[in-house]
């Protein structure tokens, strides 16, 4: 249907041709009735006599079995149409080239742009610019039954948007063809997708909350809502306080300063498969994400009991990066507002460790036992322990192997003369 409207003219069979189509028998019987209606319209509305009214059109197109020459349905449900957002318009408002009845075989495709010029211009600048691949109806649904976006019957009603976009973007083939990730299933399992599809939360972010609707641009385009440096503002549309926090932190300042290596929202939360941050899975997944950039900090974190216990899976409460450093307004430790500023350490550690005191917070959560200069005590302790472990095991391993060989040798030589069964 969508392709029909936007890319090819209607080719309606002529009456003569239709007379031979047995399936259209019902429509044929309506012809005399339609002529009566036409006459009535003419007498009551003499100055518009030449232009057919809706009833005239429905006289033929109201037949649910009506098809064009290519066997595509050209039927219109008048009842449903009248409830749609365009229900108050007349057929000829859109099919403006039909001036007479009966109308010519070939009529012009309806051009939505006639009324919706702004939207059409947005689309023509977007990734969906190709009108033949992306007619308006591909998102807004069947042309005669378009509903306003706050109507649950609309294809662009918030709760229906993912399904609508998913018609194309849920297909792995399309994703492959355009080199896009297959994001539809990721979104559906995310906190946004779950809130939207399972809970039906109207305010939950759907595709167009982040990508826009008519003006969707590639994320490589600096004007795009999903261009890296625009992402905080895009997410901030809903997550206002988090955006404000983020902008105060080192990451936000770096991005604002043009450093596109610094992380934005989607780097930690992912773009589509966004999890509830209190969930076990998020806590397990996100620490390595920080580690992608902060390699040394991650490696030293992994040496700690925080990490060791935390890696056990399930819901483990031990501290992850953001539990100490803050999540969005990550600040340097020198900043008095940072939770890891010396003045705040007792409070920060004390959130988990009851009784944390000034000596307790001397603990180094990122001590590097391999760095002699930074942590000399720890370095030598580790060195000693490793040497102890290696030397003890090496010595006794050799000792044991020699012993084994020699014992066996003696045993075989003496034919088990010594040593009882339970020796």
């Amino acid at each position, binding site marked *: 249907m969508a392709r029909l409207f936007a890319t090819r003219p209607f080719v309606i069979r002529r009456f003569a041709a239709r007379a031979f189509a047995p399936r259209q028998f019902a429509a044929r019987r309506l012809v005399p009735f339609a002529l009566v209606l036409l006459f009535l319209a003419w007498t009551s509305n003499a100055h518009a006599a030449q232009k057919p009214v809706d009833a005239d059109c429905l006289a033929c197109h109201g037949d649910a079995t009506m098809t064009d020459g290519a066997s595509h349905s050209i039927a219109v449900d008048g009842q449903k149409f009248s409830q749609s957002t365009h229900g108050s318009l007349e057929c000829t408002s859109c099919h403006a080239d039909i001036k007479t009845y009966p109308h010519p075989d070939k009529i012009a495709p309806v051009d939505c742009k006639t009324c919706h010029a702004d939207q059409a211009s947005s689309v023509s600048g977007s990734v969906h610019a190709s009108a033949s691949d992306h007619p308006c109806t591909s998102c807004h649904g069947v042309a005669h039954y378009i509903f306003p976006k706050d109507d649950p019957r609309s294809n662009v009603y918030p709760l229906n948007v993912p399904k609508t976009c998913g018609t194309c973007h849920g297909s792995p083939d399309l994703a492959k063809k355009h080199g896009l990730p297959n994001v539809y299933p990721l979104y559906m399992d995310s906190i946004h997708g779950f809130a939207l599809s399972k809970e039906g939360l109207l305010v939950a972010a759907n595709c167009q909350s982040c990508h826009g609707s008519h003006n969707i641009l590639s994320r490589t385009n600096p004007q795009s809502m999903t261009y890296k440096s625009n992402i905080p503002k895009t997410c901030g549309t809903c997550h206002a306080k988090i955006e404000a926090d983020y902008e105060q932190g080192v990451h936000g300042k770096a991005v604002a300063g043009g450093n596109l290596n610094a992380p934005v929202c989607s780097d930690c939360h992912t773009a589509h498969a966004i999890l509830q941050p209190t969930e076990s899975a998020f806590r397990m997944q996100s620490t390595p994400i920080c580690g992608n950039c902060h390699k040394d900090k991650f490696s030293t974190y992994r040496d700690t009991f925080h990490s060791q216990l935390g890696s056990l899976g399930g819901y483990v409460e031990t501290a992850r990066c953001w539990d100490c450093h803050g999540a969005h307004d990550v600040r340097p430790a020198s900043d008095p507002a940072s939770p890891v500023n010396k003045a705040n350490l007792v409070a920060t550690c004390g959130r988990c460790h009851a009784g944390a005191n000034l000596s307790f917070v001397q*603990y*180094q959560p990122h001590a590097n036992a391999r760095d002699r200069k930074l*942590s000399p005590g720890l370095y030598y302790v580790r060195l000693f322990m490793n040497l102890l472990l290696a030397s003890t095991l090496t010595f006794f391993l050799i000792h044991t192997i020699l012993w084994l060989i020699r*014992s066996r040798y003696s*045993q075989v030589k003496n034919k088990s003369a010594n040593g009882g069964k339970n020796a």
Partner: protein
Amino acid sequence: MPDPQRTEPITEAAAPAPGASRYFVRFTREQRYMHAVLFTTFLGLAATGLPMRFSESFWARKFAAGVGGFGAILFFHKLCAVVLSIAFLIHVKEVFQRGLLRREKGIFWGPTSMVGNWKDVKDLLGHMRWFLGLGAKPQFERYAYWEKFDYWAVFWGMIVIGFSGYAMWFAPFFAHFLPGWALNAVLVIHSDEGLLAILFIFSIHFVNTHLRPDTFPMDMVIFTGVESEEEFQHKRPLEYQRMMKEGKTESRLGIAPPLWLLNFSKVVGTIAVFIGLTLLVLTLTAYFH
């Protein structure tokens, strides 16, 4: 659930059958029970400690999920630690009482002491020479050098692992006495020393005392407490001679281990060795992963 009465003679009171070999006591009941408590809690500590140390391995996560989460692991680890600590303190108290208060002989010095001496060094070197076919097998006294090493390794390990463990458990308290970097060091110490203990016990100790050809598959003496006269003479010639010379034979006489005790020991010992070797394999795979 008492069983219907048995009519067999009571083994404990039975005198040794004529012609059968005499048995001599090597470990007292207290010592055997201490070993039982030690290896039970040690297995518990290893089985709960390793998943925490190698928490990124798949078996650690499976284990945690199976026993009801990390909380259960941590709880059980602490429980075993407390039991073992109590056993250790009882042992230290006893050594202190017998050695210092009651001034018993042979606790700190002499051939029956656990304290290392010059003979142990000579024994070690002689043993090595024997390994290489360069000399005769040394004659061992009551405790051979590798047994003394086992004892002191555990003794030292207990203090080191115990202290570092409690320092982590009660970190805010220990922070009053320890410098900041020590709070970091205790994990390194706890986990390295624990790993050493696990690797040592589950490989060296198992092989030295149980799996080497002389004793294969298991040396039962720590379970039964007694050794036959021939075995005693063969394994500890010096001690045997000393005992004969000092005329203490009578007081060291034990009874033949009853069958139930042998069977029981075999089952318990096999389970312990099996658990230990499993943990050893898991540790090594995780370590070299």
